[in-house]
């Protein structure tokens, strides 16, 4: 079976740098981006199974990225991670189709759990 693919977008490189090996250890195929334009170009080529994106970024911000991704890859699941976690942003991202919303800083375990759930849902959409 093909590996589940994950795209991580966060303008702070540390997030991708640390998540990538952790998720690869779990058997996922991971690509990381720190710039939303580059990430979007890549999305034009391929739909990742799961997206993990920050919200507040230069250029195209996470909310816009989320919309573009859901538009282009409706079957993909998006997990939003943000250091500006408020009820409002959480609600907005969930209504725009995000699968989960995680406040930064987070435990690595939290992301792994969220990713595993997203993967399950992709495989058995209810």
């Amino acid at each position, binding site marked *: 079976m093909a590996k589940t693919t994950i795209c991580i977008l966060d303008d702070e490189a540390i997030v991708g740098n640390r998540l990538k090996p952790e998720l690869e250890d779990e058997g996922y195929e991971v690509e990381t981006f720190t710039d939303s334009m580059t990430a979007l170009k890549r999305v034009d080529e391929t739909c990742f199974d799961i997206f993990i994106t920050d919200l507040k970024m230069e250029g195209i911000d996470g909310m816009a990225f989320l919309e573009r991704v859901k538009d282009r890859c409706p079957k993909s699941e998006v997990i939003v991670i943000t250091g500006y976690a408020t009820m409002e942003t959480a609600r907005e991202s969930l209504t725009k189709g995000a699968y989960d919303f995680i406040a930064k*800083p987070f435990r690595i375990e939290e992301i792994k759990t969220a990713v595993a759930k997203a993967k399950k849902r992709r495989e058995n959409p209810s």
Partner: protein
Amino acid sequence: MSSLGSSFSSLKGLLQKGKKKQVPFSDLFIWFQDILEKNNAALAIIADMDGKTGGDFIFDKKYLSDNVKKLAELVRRNAYNLNYITDNRYPELYGVIEGIIKKLEADLSGKITASEVPKIYFLDKIEDGMEDVVGCKAYNISRIMALSEVGIPDGFVVTIGGFRDYLAYNNLFEAIDTALEKCKNEPEAIESISNGLRLKLLGGEIPPSLRRHLLAAGEQLCGARQDRCRLAVRSSGIGEDGSLSFAGIHDSLLNVQFHELLSSYKKVLASLYSKAALEYRLKMDILSLEMAMPVLYQKMVKSRVSGVLFTLDPNDPDRDESILSAGSGIGEAVGGDSEVDTFRVLRNHPYTVVNQQVGSKTHSPASEEPDVSPMKDPCLTHDEIAAIMDTGLLLERFFKVPMDIEWGIDEDGQLWILQARQLNIPASALAQHTQQKNVADGYPVIFRNRGMVAYRGIGAGPVYIVKDEQDLGKFPKGGVLVSQFSPPWLARAIPRASAVITDIGSVTGHMATVAREFRIPTIVGAQIATQLLEAGRKITVDTEKNIVYEGIVQELIRYKLLEKPSFETTPEFQILRRLLKKIAPLYLTNPDAPNFTPKGCRTLHDVMRFIHEKAFQSLVKSGKNSRSFIKRGGKRLKTDMPIDLVLIDIGGGLAKTAKEEVCVDPEDITSIPMKAIWKGLSSPGTWSTEPVPVDMKGFMSSMTRTQGTEIMGNALPNVNLAVLGADYVNLSMPLGYHFTTVIASIGSSPQNNNISFRFAGGVTDITRRSRRASLIAKILEVIGFKVEITGDLVIASSVNLMEENMARQLFVIGKLIGFTRQLDVLLKNDEDIDYYFNKFMEQIDNPANPQ
């Protein structure tokens, strides 16, 4: 932050211009409570940041800068609050705070701040947190020294202060900036840029004062026989946290003679800009981080035998063997000409040699085949091999990578570590290795996902269960420390441990902080570890996945050793560590010490402690005796106990019904921490009714002692006084001839919970008072406090435990306050300490319960 700073200084200006004012007593409560709230909020942020150093969280720069901003705001506001209620008595606080914040902001931006540091530090004088002053190699050596049992040759380091002097004196700053900028834009020109920079460095002149200091340090190091003195001079670069990545890039000079002290300095400095160093910085994208080069000088060891230990075989890292080579002679490393013995040694006790090559002959001691040809003796005994392996693996556990260690054994048999760096594993060997991922699959799991991870990593060894402090002495190197509780004294064994598991404990507690400091994989709150694990059983603790395996999973240990650099090498993590050094430690623990001043504050925690104490003093200094406090709304506590106690409620500390009364019943106390103390103070047996025998010596001595308040010297009223809030108590008790202070915040959120305890003074001579201090300290340690004793002064603290655990500690403190009253004259000799310790502990329900 700057806008906040300026609006703040305008506030400050207003305050200074304002008229002299007296804040009404009732208003003081509100201000004081505000100070407490901000204090607790700041402590919670500090605990949160500290908890992020364990590697279990992913955090970014925004997290760091947000928290620094929040802390800065809280501390500035509190300084303002204090100055408001004290009629601007501490204006210098603002400058102190801004000074610390400026350093924090510099850390956030990746710059190093060490403007006024001494030019030279001797290795044994390097203190915690001086990484960015002395450089990583020197700092790590000082840390290895703290591991004890590892011999490190004496030496000193020329600090970043010396480096900057050198650049400034020779006008080199600008030239370097320009050249580095050019490096980024024209990477192909890196070689000529490097040559240019190195020539500039070599051609400079050492500033006169640095020259004097350097020569003086050299004289001190070399002693009388300067002509015979030989030194090793090496770089100790900044920003090489974890340290080892730059190994081999910067120069090391060996056999440096005294007259080469100065020229060797310049040579090492110049290597900061070697081609390899610049390429490395370019590749790692750290060219813009400030470059600085402290330089390390160490005495060379006259070795009888010396050599190199690779803790893993670099060509076959999956073999569970170390390679040890040794040759007789004084060389720092084994030279090409001398006869070299090579040993392949199994990586676990008793370090069996599976193969040895003595001189040019190979021999396998493990095989029973008789060797007919005569062979000369190897140059190491098995005891020496074991000692080198013990130390090598200790360093491997500490640095989390396979190590390449140069060692020497001198004529007296002492083992010295001359150099320690990360072992380079060739890419080919690594490629083959890293294919195996779930290396631990198939190993039996003892338990998983229990408790919280305090530090991420892999550790393995035999289980050693620690029940009390006596057990610590026998703790074996490389053992897995297993304990029911996480008392601060456990921290003493941590440097020797390969992993730590406790049943109960907090990620932000003192023990966990020390575990992070020493990078020991640690799980706290596993609940069932002491039930499931028995002493001597070999286990592997994987706190990255939070799994405890049966047996030693060598594949997993090696996999982790050879993996890409750990979280600790990320810039965010390094910045967090640097920030915390300037934020979290509490150095101002004694309000009566001469350095308890704004200028004495080294960290934000110190500043908060100072503000809290001074605000409290200003709150209580207005009353002189219990009557004057009662006039201002204080309440006398109705009790049969022989204790006169006045309670002042700043909000939520006493039940509403008590408002009109001058006296209140103990049942009216609603303050959580005060309730707990009172439970102890009023419990049966606390106030012994037995007459206390006063011998003549003790009595005479008491005649010359003054009252408690003067003992403490801090101008607090001579009244037993408790200032109460719902979650807060500040209790000061000049009971008889001693003075006890308890400050506690306790509520449902452990991050806000803390207790600090102080005890001093008392009748009788200093020997007996010191005995009493030892006894009190012993009791406090057993119930989970971190304790410091200076003479007869006891200072103890406990942080971030659950409400019920901290309430229990306060209960014991309540009992202790009553108990200490009798102690003045009872402790006639040192044996009495144990006797009264046991007597006291009998009164506590469960003496083993340190939480």
